[in-house]
């Protein structure tokens, strides 16, 4: 069965600091991978998706970037965090229906 791991589970960072959130997938090969952000427990906004190693597409212009160094690893990064980057970040994988990781709650102070 497919499992998605995300870490850290929670993170508090000062404005201007860097960010690295990691997502790894088990139980499937060559999945499409996604990063979503969810604000205030409401709808999800797609940030990035990847159909393969090194292939990243951005859905919205923002302060964040994504990388996929390995087939089942997806990383969300920022060089300098903004207050508006606070939120709940979810990684998902898609062979068919999307499977979601447990999420990372990021608070930027």
């Amino acid at each position: 069965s497919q499992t998605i791991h995300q870490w850290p589970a929670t993170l508090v960072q000062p404005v201007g600091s860097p960010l690295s959130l990691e997502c790894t997938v088990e139980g499937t090969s060559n999945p499409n991978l996604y990063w979503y952000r969810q604000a205030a427990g409401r709808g999800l906004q797609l940030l990035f998706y990847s159909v393969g190693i090194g292939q990243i597409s951005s859905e919205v212009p923002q302060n964040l970037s994504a990388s996929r160094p390995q087939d089942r690893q997806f990383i969300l990064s920022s060089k300098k965090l903004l207050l508006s980057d606070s939120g709940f970040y979810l990684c998902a994988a898609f062979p068919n229906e999307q499977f979601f990781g447990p999420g990372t709650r990021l608070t930027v102070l």
Partner: protein
Amino acid sequence: SQQGEEDPQALSIQEGENATMNCSYKTSINNLQWYRQNSGRGLVHLILIRSNEREKHSGRLRVTLDTSKKSSSLLITASRAADTASYFCATVSPGTSYGKLTFGQGTILTVHP
């Protein structure tokens, strides 16, 4: 912008009652999916209904799809306190081979024991 719009935004019922949540969308779709999210957790896929299907069942869940009205409903029968969660609909549009989901804002369901 969000494709799906769920209503109601919040629903509060007693255990044993049925809960109905609705979702409307704006563009044509390949399929529509419903997800559940417990507070502060990841989303769990509940059910997928394709554009050529009208109704689908899974346990206590019943999903309908009306493509002419661009709407779907999720019915949870005989609700339990453990069903308390947020429920989201999400659509996949034609041409999005990478499986991009567009989510609605969700319905917060509270089931009182």
